[in-house]
């Protein structure tokens, strides 16, 4: 089921990225990172890396067509591994912690991308600070929100409401 989950998540990420791009949102959250982080939950490094590869390739295709295909794949694989490693060694349950972790992942990925571009092309191109911070914040907020939503026992609540209506 995991490949289907990854495919579904990546499809949603593509659609969301395109939608925010159409709305001229200057610093959209990293939706693809959310998919990788979802696969890294519980310390599963290999699924996280395997999800990072198509996620990064898709992001490359969407954000930098015609340029270096594989930049985001590299960084997403790396970030996926790091998230899985952290998840395997610590217990991250609170939405704030998850959000903070994902915000940090955005910063790590930006650093990795900068380093990679510098190594490959010789151009040192650090990202602008405030857009990076905004991206990390929105990504972390969204991740925390989704994590919190995933912890809500929606089925039990629905069952309880149904039983209350019946009684």
């Amino acid at each position, binding site marked *: 089921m995991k490949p289907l989950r990854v495919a579904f998540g990546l499809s949603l990420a593509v659609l969301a990225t395109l939608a925010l791009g159409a709305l001229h949102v200057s610093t959209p959250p990293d939706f693809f990172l959310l998919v990788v982080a979802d696969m890294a939950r519980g310390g599963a490094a290999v699924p996280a890396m395997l999800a990072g590869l198509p996620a990064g390739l898709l992001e490359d295709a969407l954000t930098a067509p015609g340029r270096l295909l*594989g930049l985001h794949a590299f960084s997403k694989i790396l970030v996926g591994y790091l998230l*899985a490693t952290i998840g395997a060694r610590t217990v991250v349950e609170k939405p704030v912690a998850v959000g903070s972790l994902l915000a940090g992942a955005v910063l790590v990925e930006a650093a990795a991308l900068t380093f990679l571009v510098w190594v490959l092309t010789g151009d040192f191109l650090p990202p602008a600070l405030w857009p990076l911070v905004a991206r990390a914040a929105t990504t972390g907020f969204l991740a925390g929100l989704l994590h919190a939503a995933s912890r809500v026992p929606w089925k039990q609540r629905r069952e309880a409401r149904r039983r209350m209506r019946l009684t």
Partner: protein
Amino acid sequence: MAAPTLAERRPEIFLAVLLSLCFIALSLQVRRAGGRTVGESWLLTAVSPFVNVVTGVRSGLLEVGTWTTSRRALRVENGALADEVERLRAELLRLRDAEKDKGRLLELFGAQPSPPPGTVPARLIAIESSGPFHTALLDRGASDGLQLDGVVLARDGLLGRVIALGRQTARMQLLSDNTAAVGVLLTHAGRGGRAAVAKGDGIGGVSVEYVPTIEPVEPSDVLVSSGTDGLYPGGLAVGRVASVRRNKTLFWEIHVFAAADPHRESLVFVLPPVRKSDVTPGASVTERR
């Protein structure tokens, strides 16, 4: 429960493999100074032999096509060039002949700066031998001013005289003819000249008769015309003594190398015939006139 795979047990290895693949893929896309990526360079290097082969075949086909279409023009041009070469070759031969004739003329006129009036140049176009009779054909005749008994001179000396005239041609008798004779002076260094008669031997040479054995004669003595025979002016080179032999008579048997060889001469000069009143023994042709 299935055993964990190597990737699950050692995710670092999997990470390294994936990152390496990504890095290699990225490296292949990086543009170099020439504007090409590493991948493009590798691809171009790999396909360059094929491209070279295709280019070579294409250029070969183009050359064949060009050769085919221009073959007719080349053949026409080749024919024209062959004709031109033939024409130029003939022109070259003609010019060489003219140059040779010019050299001979210069040599002749250098020796005789003022040829006698009425001297006509002619070509010796054929030599005919019939037994003891030796004649030659000239390409000038009566219409060119030649007269009977005209004296025929070559570059090196006397050749003979005109014995028959046509309008455009003339026949001359060579000194080697058995019936030809010329009065000569047999000269030797330190001695004066001794009159004698040179006659054709009928076999291509000249011999001297009537020189008594009491007269000293040696090989390489020189013979010049004496001008006493009424046919030839004096002072013309006739030949050089080749051999001297004593025979049973009172006279030497003398064989002579002729000064002029008709077989090596193509250009001759025909002087007007000697007038009987002008005969002066020993006078040269230029002095006489």
